[in-house]
């Protein structure tokens, strides 16, 4: 009986069984940032413990960094204090930190892959739920809390229980104007925000086989929005091609050894899954959320679904979503007026995302609607440089978008980029939770970067298939 990638990697990283029945799991790559690490270092100091494998932790700053004026000290004194804390903690413990200006800073889930730190067959942990992103490489990658960040710093291990594995198979070719973001929003809509609790998601099938690494990262990134702590795609030639030559990728004789190992960790053809769900790529449309959970999605040509289409236990939530978003069942999704457009985040802040959005801007030929504030935030300093080399920044700024510096920005609005009052945001990020984008009454519509670009130009949610044919 064959094994899944999840089980192979979990087994090879299991140090021993703990008395609780959990496994002590070795973490191959630990990523830290300024928000969830300071308390962990404080706990280590309290317990007079040091970092066991400092070379296996990488740090950057992303959540609180401003995307306009990055001169130090930051105008926000708490942001400055958090920056100083991670600078001191990483210096004291011999951990590499990529700060703004280093040329390699950015959203942690964008930086680690682009540096070649994320590799197939690894375990990856970070105090951030979107660590699932790294599963795109065939790694087992999951978010952890701050006490667990402490555990990894002290022991390079975690106490973890084994998950079940659900294979999510999508086959076929995506239609023009339909992106990786639409695939995952569609999957979430069907399997719900809690359907994946207790599972790892294996994304497989010809649709994922045909995707670039950046597209695969978008999909795995949002596994957590379906309740699955991690999502992954088996490594293949696309994976190896992406990694080759990157700064920390294995080189020379080690590259050959790496290829052998990476090929061996993929799920066996006769692997047994706890569940299998299949989708047809041709049935997926550009998808937009209308509610307050990432599984509240609908095709752009559909309407807000009626409460009766949801199970009884969900209906109170659905009513709450209607009230918060101020929408009614039957309201068409297309035509929803927006106030703000945000392109960026660990979900969609990579070079291919900006290329697609810029393509829409060029094909449309117009300017950002007069009532819309549109910001474009590259996911890393490297992405920013690459986009500028291609002239994408100019495409955006000529059309009235603001081109910013790298960070998490308005995905969770811990920096100055925030919604105001009841504003509606068309956003390429990952969460439409109440208050997520910085205003406790603000509203978020999740969609692909191309759809955000078009919404910015039209001033309302519009079908990108009218531009991308």
């Amino acid at each position, binding site marked *: 009986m064959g094994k899944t990638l999840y089980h192979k990697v979990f087994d090879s990283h299991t140090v021993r069984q703990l008395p609780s029945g959990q496994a*002590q799991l070795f973490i191959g790559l630990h990523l830290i940032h300024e928000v969830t690490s300071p308390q962990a270092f404080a706990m280590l100091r309290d317990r007079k413990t040091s970092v066991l494998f400092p070379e296996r932790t990488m740090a950057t700053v992303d959540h609180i960094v401003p995307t306009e004026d990055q001169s130090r000290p930051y105008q926000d004194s708490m942001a400055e204090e958090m920056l100083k804390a991670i600078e001191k903690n990483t210096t004291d413990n011999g951990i590499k930190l990529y700060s703004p200006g280093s040329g390699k800073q950015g959203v942690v889930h964008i930086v680690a892959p682009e540096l070649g730190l994320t590799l197939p067959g690894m375990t990856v942990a970070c105090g951030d739920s979107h660590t699932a992103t790294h599963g795109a490489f065939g790694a087992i990658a999951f978010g952890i809390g*701050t006490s667990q960040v402490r555990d990894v710093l002290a*022991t390079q291990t975690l106490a973890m229980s084994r998950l079940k594995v659900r294979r999510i198979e999508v086959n076929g070719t995506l239609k023009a104007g339909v992106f990786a973001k639409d695939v995952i929003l569609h999957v979430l809509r069907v399997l719900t925000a809690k359907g994946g609790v207790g599972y790892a998601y294996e994304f497989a099938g010809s649709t994922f086989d045909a995707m670039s690494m950046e597209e695969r990262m978008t999909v795995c990134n949002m596994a957590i929005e379906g309740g699955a702590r991690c999502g992954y795609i088996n490594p293949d030639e696309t994976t190896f091609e992406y990694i080759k030559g990157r700064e920390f990728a294995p080189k020379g004789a080690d590259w050959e050894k790496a290829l052998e190992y990476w090929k061996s960790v993929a799920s066996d053809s006769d692997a047994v899954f706890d569940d299998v769900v299949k989708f047809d790529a041709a049935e997926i449309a550009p998808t937009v959320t209308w509610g307050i959970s990432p599984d509240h999605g609908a095709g752009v040509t559909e309407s807000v679904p009626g409460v009766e289409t949801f199970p009884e236990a969900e209906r109170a939530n659905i009513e709450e979503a209607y009230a918060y978003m101020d929408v009614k069942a039957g309201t068409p999704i297309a035509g929803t007026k927006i106030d703000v457009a945000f392109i960026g985040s660990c979900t969609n802040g990579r070079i291919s995302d900006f290329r697609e959005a810029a393509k829409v801007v060029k094909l449309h030929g117009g300017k950002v609607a007069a009532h819309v504030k549109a910001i474009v935030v590259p996911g890393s300093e490297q992405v920013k440089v690459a986009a500028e080399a291609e002239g994408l920044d100019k495409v955006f700024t000529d059309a009235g978008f603001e081109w910013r510096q790298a960070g998490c920005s308005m995905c969770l609005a811990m920096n100055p980029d925030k919604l105001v009052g009841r504003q509606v945001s068309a956003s390429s990020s990952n969460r439409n939770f109440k208050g997520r984008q910085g205003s406790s009454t603000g509203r978020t519509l999740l969609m692909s970067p191309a759809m955000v670009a078009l919404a910015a130009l039209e001033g309302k949610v519009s079908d990108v298939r009218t531009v991308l044919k």
Partner: protein
Amino acid sequence: MSKIQTISGRAIPVRGGDIDTDRIIPARFLRCVTFEGLGEHAFEDDRLQDTRNGLVHPFDQERFQGAKVLVVNQNFGCGSSREHAPQAIYRWGVQAIVGVSYSEIFYGNTVAIGMPCVHVSPEDSVELQTLIETDPSVEVTVDLEKSEVRAAGKTFKATLPAGARGQFLEGTWDAMAELVSGIESVKQTAAALPYLAWK
């Protein structure tokens, strides 16, 4: 590390499925380098929303102040991994949570800080919430040893994963000491992994 066997006290209900960690503690309160002071901001924006709508959120109701047991519904704590969320609830005064289901990361965080979350049926979670709303003075007991919740003469079956249950009962819920005791084995596992030696 202290053993946690039973938690008894008054309870507070927060109704609704998929209550995410952004709602439990909005991101602006993550601008900090310690967890101190988070308790007073638990559910801050939901509380503001209720106030605007002429309602009073349970965390603002006088009758629920001092409660030790929080009763919730499905998929509580979904979304962000922020430990600030369980820390805020714990620092407000909650010592145990009773609910139908929890997100994995939230659950792991509650074990790490010694705040048990037990699972009850959807019907029982609602019955408990109604019971507490009707009489906030009722004492609710979360009994990990017997795997049950007791309130007002009624007993509800309440489970938690065997591992977490054992960790609370034996006082080994802070994983770090246990993990540190295995460091020699950790080094052996690391040496056997192919990728640690690559250059």
